[in-house]
C-alpha cells in the first residue's frame, strides 16, 4: 500500500463537526446518566448544560491555538509554546490520559455488547473485531473517517429522534418535578461527571491541520457542541420521564427505556435495532480516539508517518481494555474520581493555559 507522507487529505469543517458530534454524544448517553443521577437526582438532565461550559472553553482554546499554528497539532505546537522539554512532558501527559480514555471507550463498547447482547462471546472477539476495522479505517486516513461519520451520523441522529418519539406515550411529566427542588447545586454536582465529555472537544486539535476551510471550524464546532448538549439533555429527559424514580437504579437507563418501548403491542423489542446504530456511533468514537492516539504518539516520537504504529497501539488498547478494567464497579469508581478531576484538567484547563502563554507570546 502506498504510504502518503505529506498529508494531502482534506476534510471540511462540516465533516469535522459531525465527526466530533458522534465521537462525543454516543457514549455520553450510555453510562453517564446513571452517574449524574447519583448526585443530581431528577435534575440530572440539566447537568450537561452546565458542563457545556467546559465545551465552550475547550473549543475556544483549541480553535484559537489552531489559528496560531494552522499546520500543527496539539502535540506539535505545545513544544513551540512552552519549550521543547515542557512540551514533551505535557504531550506525554496528554497521550497517557488519552490512552486511558481510549481504553475506557473500548471497554464501554465491549461491556455494552457483552452485557446486553452477546454475553457468551469472548471479549477479545468483540474488541478485536472492532479494533481490526478501526485499524483499517485509520490507516486509510482522516478523510475516510470523516466520510464515514458523514454517512453514519445522520442515521444515528435519526435513531435518537426515533427513540425520543416512540417513548413519548410512556412519558409522565410528574417524574421531572420538582425542577431544581434543592436549588441548582445538585445539578452542578452532577455535571462533575459530564465535564470530561465536553473536554473531549480537545480532539479537534488533531483534525484542524487537515481542514480545507479552517475559517468555518468555529461555527461548526459550536453547532456540534450545541447538538451534543441537546442530545444529552433530551435523552436524559426522555429516560427520566419514562422511567421515573428508577432511573438511578439502572446502569444504562436509556437502554432500559428503549426496551420499554411498546407501541400498540406490535412495535416493541426494538432495542437491537436502535443499538445497532449506537454501535455504528461507537465505531466512530473509537476511530476518533485511536486516530488521535496514533497521530499524537507518532508526532511525540517525531515519526514521519503514523501508519506503522496503528496496529501496535490498537493491540495495546484492546489488551489494556481487557486487563485494565476488572468490573463495572471498578470502572465507575475510576470514572467518578480520576476522570472527574483529571479529565477537565488535561482536556480543558491545560489547553487554556497553553493558549494563555501563546497569547502572551504572539498577541491576539
Amino acid at each position, binding site marked *: 500500500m502506498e504510504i502518503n507522507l505529506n498529508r494531502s487529505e482534506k476534510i471540511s469543517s462540516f465533516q469535522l463537526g459531525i465527526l466530533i458530534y458522534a465521537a462525543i454524544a454516543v457514549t455520553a448517553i450510555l453510562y453517564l446518566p446513571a452517574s449524574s443521577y447519583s448526585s443530581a437526582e431528577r435534575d440530572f438532565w440539566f447537568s450537561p448544560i452546565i458542563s457545556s461550559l467546559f465545551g465552550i472553553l475547550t473549543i475556544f482554546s483549541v480553535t484559537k491555538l489552531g489559528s496560531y499554528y494552522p499546520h500543527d497539532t496539539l502535540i506539535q505546537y505545545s513544544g513551540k509554546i512552552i519549550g521543547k522539554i515542557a512540551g514533551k512532558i505535557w504531550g506525554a501527559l496528554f497521550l497517557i490520559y488519552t490512552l486511558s480514555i481510549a481504553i475506557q471507550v473500548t471497554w464501554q463498547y465491549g461491556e455494552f455488547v457483552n*452485557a*446486553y*447482547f*452477546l*454475553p*457468551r*462471546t*469472548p471479549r477479545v*472477539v468483540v474488541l478485536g*473485531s472492532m479494533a481490526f476495522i478501526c485499524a483499517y479505517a485509520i490507516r486509510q486516513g482522516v478523510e475516510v473517517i470523516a466520510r464515514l461519520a458523514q454517512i453514519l451520523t445522520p442515521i444515528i441522529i435519526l435513531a435518537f429522534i426515533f427513540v425520543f418519539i416512540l417513548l413519548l406515550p410512556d412519558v409522565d411529566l*410528574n*417524574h421531572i*418535578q*420538582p425542577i431544581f*427542588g*434543592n436549588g441548582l447545586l445538585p445539578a452542578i454536582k452532577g455535571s462533575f461527571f459530564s465535564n470530561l465529555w465536553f473536554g473531549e472537544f480537545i480532539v479537534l486539535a488533531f483534525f484542524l491541520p487537515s481542514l480545507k476551510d479552517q475559517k468555518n471550524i468555529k461555527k461548526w464546532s459550536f453547532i456540534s457542541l450545541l447538538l451534543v448538549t441537546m442530545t444529552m439533555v433530551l435523552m436524559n429527559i426522555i429516560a427520566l420521564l*419514562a*422511567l*421515573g*424514580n*428508577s432511573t438511578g*437504579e*439502572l446502569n444504562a437507563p436509556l*437502554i*432500559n427505556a428503549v*426496551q*420499554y418501548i*411498546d407501541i400498540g*403491542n406490535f412495535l*416493541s*423489542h426494538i432495542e437491537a435495532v436502535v443499538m445497532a446504530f449506537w454501535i455504528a456511533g461507537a465505531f466512530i468514537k473509537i476511530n476518533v480516539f485511536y486516530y488521535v492516539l496514533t497521530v499524537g504518539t507518532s508526532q511525540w516520537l517525531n515519526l514521519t508517518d503514523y501508519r506503522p504504529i496503528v496496529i501496535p497501539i490498537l493491540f495495546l488498547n484492546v489488551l489494556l481494555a481487557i486487563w485494565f478494567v476488572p468490573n463495572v464497579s471498578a470502572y465507575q469508581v475510576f470514572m467518578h474520581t480520576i476522570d472527574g478531576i483529571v479529565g477537565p484538567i488535561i482536556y480543558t484547563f491545560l489547553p487554556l493555559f497553553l493558549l494563555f502563554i501563546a497569547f502572551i507570546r504572539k498577541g491576539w
Partner: protein
Amino acid sequence: MTTIRIVFILMSCLLLTGCWDRNELNEIALVRGIGIDILNNGQIEVSVEISVPKAPSGSGGGGESDGMAQGSGGITLPTVRTGRGVTIPDALEKLQEVIPRKIFWGHTEVIIINENLAKTGLRDKMDYFMRNPRFRLHAFVFVTKGKAKDMLGLETSLYSPSEVLTDFSEEKVMLHVTLINLLDMLNSGDAAIPMIKKVPPQKKSKPTQTIPFIKSSAVFKNDKMVGTISDKLTRGVKWIQNDIEETQVTVNSKKGEGYISMTLLRAETKLEPVIKKDGKWKMIIKARTDDDIILNESHLNLKDPQNIKIVKKALEKKLTARLQHALDKVQKDYKADVFGFGEAFHRKYPKQWKESKDHWDEIYPNLEVELDIHANVLRTGAGSAH
C-alpha cells in the same frame, strides 16, 4: 488481487453468524409468564409458562379452531414447568434441568407473585429482574392469593394465561403495573398491584378450564403487602391516581326513584398539596369529569335542565363517596401512600418535603384530605325509550 479481495470479503461473512450467542428459535424456550411462590419451608418455587413454537399441524385437528392457530404457521402450546430453590436464580437453575431448551427471557410479559411471598417483601425479589439485562421492564406484575403456578397452568381456551393477563392489563379497567412502575412506586411511596383470581369455571368443565382475571388490588406498605382492596375501591384509587380511562357509573337519586347510568368521557384528577400557614399539611383532590347519560330507569325527565342538575349532583355525591371510601381504607387502615401524595408534596414543596420526608409515615395517615369533585353531564344519549 481482486479475486483475493472478494474471497476475503466473502469469508468475513462467516464472522457474522455470531458463533457464541446464536439463539435459534428451535433451541430456546420462550418464557411468557413467570410465577413465584413460597413454600412452607421458606424455599422459593418458580414456575414458568413456556411457549413452544411447533410446526403447523396440517389439518388443524383438535380444539385449535379458535382462530389463534391459523395464519402464522405455528401453534404455540403453553406448558408450565417448575423449579425450587432458595432464591429465584437458584430455582431457575433447577428449572432449567427440566426444560430441554434454553430459557429465553426476552418475551416475558407477566410476573405473578404469590400473596405469602408478597407479604415478606418485594424489593429483594424484583432485584433479579432488574439485574437481568435480558428481562423486559415492561412485564406486568400481579399478585395472587393461591399459587402462582396454578394461575399459569390454567387451560385457557383462547390463548395462554399470560396473554390473557396482558390483555386485561392493557384494557386498563383495573390497575396495570409494569415492573418499572412498581420500582418507581416503591422508590417514591407505596405500591398497589393488581390481584388476580380464577374466573369460576363452568359447571361441566374441569376446575382448571378457565381464565385468570384481575379481581382486586394488593396494597403494599414499603415493599410488603399489607392488605387488599376490592374492585370498587380500586376504582376509587384509580380516580385519585388520575388513571380513569373508561368506566360506567350508575347513580340512584332519591327524587327519581330509579337508576341512571352514565358513561365517562373524560376524567381528570389533580392532586393539590397545601401547606397551611400554621404548618398543617393538607391535600386537595380535584376531580373533573364529563359524562353522557346512557340509561335512564328513573322518573326524571332528562329534557329538563333542572333534572340534569339533580343527576349531576347525584353523580358528584357518588364519586365523592367512592373516593372517600378508597381513602378511608388505604390511607387510614393500611397507611399506604399508593396515591402518590408524598410525591405531590415533594413536587410542590421540595424544601418542606426534604425536612419532613422522614416523618412522612406519621404525617400521611392523619393528613387532611379535601375532595373537590365536579361532574358535567353533557349529553343524554341519541334518543330514549320513554
